């Protein structure tokens, strides 16, 4: 029996059959992890990093006496500081996140919910602290959950994610502003959004987050319909957020749409590159491995 490929380990039908965000998250994460050669579940300890020359005033307890005996040099041992990182799942809940194309296995928000839950589960397993920020459309009051390593935190995160409903208009900038205001200590922000909001404020907010020393991972969740524009028949399009309507003839509009869409995506890419923000596009009609891989890779850096 051959080893299943990554694609084989993700079946949207199986995912749909699972009840509850908990199972869906584990299904996604464990399915992904079983394919990796190196297990990420490793113990942590205080690890030696390197030496530096002794300076008067240094604590003699950190002096490497053996090295002194061997080389007659006074060196101080330096350790890799092993701290558990704080992660925040920040989720956009604007009405556009509710879109689900014909090929998608879940709406964009549903997809973000599952992936975020999977990451949270993994983080809590690793004794990292996970928290949560979202924005209530009606009241403009952020929904904020302080990061915690407690096992109960996973349940709380699931409830919070489960309660998210797509509603309201453009709110990315506000969400990021609230995140900047609420997250004080240096943390890792896992940002889930379709980013379908051209906003100078958004760019400014990402810059502020970086300025405050936060690491940001952006997961742009898009529907296949938005990327490929597969429509063929002329029909009335209504914007999910503004209610604006357009009579669209896809045959004539497709080329220009793709051109504008790709330029928009390129703009994002450039922005995140300039800010050194890891960024990945997550399609809701494909498996989420790409996002999880990015997440794991980045997580290692933050250890």
């Amino acid at each position, binding site marked *: 029996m051959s080893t299943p490929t990554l694609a084989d380990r993700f079946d949207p039908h199986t995912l749909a059959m699972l009840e509850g965000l908990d199972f869906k998250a584990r299904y996604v994460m464990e399915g992904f992890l079983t394919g990796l050669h190196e297990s990420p579940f490793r113990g942590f300890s205080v690890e030696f990093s390197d030496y530096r020359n002794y300076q008067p005033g240094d604590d003699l307890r950190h002096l490497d006496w053996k090295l002194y005996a061997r080389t007659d040099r006074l060196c101080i041992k330096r350790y890799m500081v092993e701290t558990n990182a704080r992660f925040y799942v920040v989720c956009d809940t604007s009405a556009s996140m509710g879109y689900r194309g014909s090929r998608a296995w879940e709406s964009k928000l549903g997809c973000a919910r599952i992936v975020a839950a999977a990451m949270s589960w993994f983080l809590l397993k690793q004794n990292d602290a996970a928290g949560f920020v979202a924005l209530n459309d009606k009241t403009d009051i952020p929904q904020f959950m302080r990061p915690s390593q407690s096992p109960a935190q996973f349940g709380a995160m699931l409830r919070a994610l489960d309660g998210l409903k797509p509603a309201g208009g453009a709110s990315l900038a506000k969400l990021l502003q609230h995140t900047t205001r609420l997250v004080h200590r240096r943390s890792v922000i896992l940002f889930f959004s379709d980013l379908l909001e051209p906003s100078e404020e958004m760019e400014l907010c990402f810059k502020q987050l970086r300025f405050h020393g936060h690491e940001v991972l952006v997961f742009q969740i898009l529907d296949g319909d938005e990327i490929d524009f597969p429509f063929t028949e002329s029909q009335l399009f*209504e914007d999910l957020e503004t209610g604006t309507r*357009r009579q669209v003839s896809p045959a004539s509009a497709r080329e220009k749409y793709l051109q504008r869409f790709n330029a928009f995506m390129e703009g994002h890419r450039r922005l995140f590159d300039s800010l050194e923000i890891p960024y990945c596009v997550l399609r809701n009609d494909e498996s989420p491995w790409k996002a999880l891989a990015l997440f794991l890779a980045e997580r290692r850096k933050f250890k």
Partner: protein
Amino acid sequence: MESARAVSGGTKEVQVSFSFLNPLFWLGVLAVASPIYLHLRRKQPENLLRFAALRFLDDQPEPKQSPRRLRDLLLFALRVLALFLIISAFAWPFIRKANHIIVKESRVYIIDNSLSQQVEDGFVKARDRVANEFGKADRETQVAVVELTANPRVISGFSDSHDLAQQKVRQLQPSFQRGSYLAAFRQANSLLANSLGEKKKIIFLTDNQENQWNENLNTPPFLQDVEVEFPKPGTPSHGNAAVSDPRAQRIFLGEKSLVNFTVQLAHQGSIRSAKLSVRVNGQEVLSHQIDLTDKPENIIFQTQWEAEPSLQLRGEVALEVEGDALAGDNKTYFSLPPVQEGKVAVLAQSSFLKLALSPDIMRGQWATHVIDPTKIAEEVEAKNDAEVLCIESSYLQSTEARKLLWRYLSNARGVFLMVNRVTPLTKGFLKEIVFEILPEEARVGGSAKFQYIFANHPIFHPFTSPDYGNLMEINVIDPIRLRSKDAIPLIFSDKGEPVFFQNPKQPGKLYVSSFGFDRQQTSWPVHPTFIPFLDLCLQNARASDQTPTSFEPGDTYVQTFATNAGVSEVVLKNDKELSRTPVTNGKIQLRLPDQPGLYTLAYEGTSKSEKVIAINPSPKESQLAYVTKPSAIDTWTLPHSPPKNAAEQAKPGVDLSLSSIWQQRIWWWLLLAGLIGLACEAVLSNLKRRSA
């Protein structure tokens, strides 16, 4: 807009006019609009795709058919409101023209329902006339009715239906009250000020009593552009006799307990004789035929009878007269409470005073406590004050005596101060109670007799009868010359000096004589009037219920109670209970009945004895003298305002000329509101567009 007729009860037709202000109009609009709104709201266009990335398709054409779903209710409401206001503004002249009934005349009837109107059934005739006028009045005439009583009131306003107003007017009954013509005119004028009629008119159905018109001759003018009509010319004088102002007082003469009673008999016109009878507690005490030929118009009758001091007296004076035009004033009522023994403290050397107040003489009336001059301090300490303190000024040398006197006054008790001797100290104290002593040089020495006496004062009123002795015979020798800016002199000597005062400015009643009751200073103690005077003076000085016992019909009775009185409710009754008034904040206020008679006030929640009050018509209502053309109306009327432009007056209804639109203030308000609505809509939609 047209008027619709709805049949009510199968027989009557009720007119309902439709206008924008009619609630039925708005209900109809709501009923029509609701299904349309719901239909538009629920209608979903076919072939609609709700897409997230429409921003990349904004170069595509907008749908040809505008969306029918209401997306912004506020904007929608603003647009509708603005349109509605502007349409209403332009339609207003037409609406007014179609719906507006031009009121040609606003008319207020004032029905005089005072006692004097009962002459020749004047009130009944006036009432029936007004009721009939309602039947005749068309839609172009507004009619209101004011009843003139003690408190003039609006019986029906302009907005009341004629049937209802007619019914209310027919229910009116003749009253025994007296009301102010001026108050009724003011009430009518305020009604007319809010009326729509082009012509404003007051029709005063009255007998034009002279004394009523003369009461308010100096009132500043207030009637403008109001026509006043007196349908009834001044009625010729009638014959009338009336009894009024009954006064009963108890007098104690030796062993006898008497009631001194006076009543005023007024007559006019052709009345030649009358029979006067007085009944007290059901027994007739006087019946007297009086010949009124060549007698003055006002006669005071005085009588007296013996009466048990502990009895509450309820009396009635009746007059039987032939050819009397007004029967309502032929009876008058009075009451006299039983005697309650009072307590008097005496700090005086006068042996006459002590003897007069001794139990042998004042038993049952006054319990006397003679204060020992050596124990005034103990009296002050004891704080067991009597109702009245009789004190000679010679004792005011003592600080304790002064303290005692002040305490009596400030605790609203009575003080009878006899200024028999003056020292610098007493002089200073008298100044404190606002009495000044004139210098010795200004003093007119020698003996002087009483000359002028305030005969209407309750203390001296009985002495108008010679039965109790003549006060003019009393001598005073070298009285102290007192002067006061606050006190009222009640007796003057024949030398023009005031010798007896009442100071009403103190909380307690203070009577001051400028002499002591010794033979060296006055002959009064040996005069037969001394004991009755002393008793009456003390009775008046004691702290008692100050509320009067005689009222006019429709008056308001007000009584305050001490906080510890414990009275919860006051019940007004005659043979049966008439009303119950709860005591609020230690006070009651109740409207007295319209019918003359004797009424009892019972105090619930306390052992306080009942109080009997008498209600008698005003004696002024008995003066049946009339005027034909009251000059007061000319005083009350303002000069006419300049007449309107003749061209404007000639135009019937409402025209659409610029000037007429300008005058219609409502038009401008509607237009302004519409424009404000549009401006708000523009700002709001602009904001929405920006945020989108």
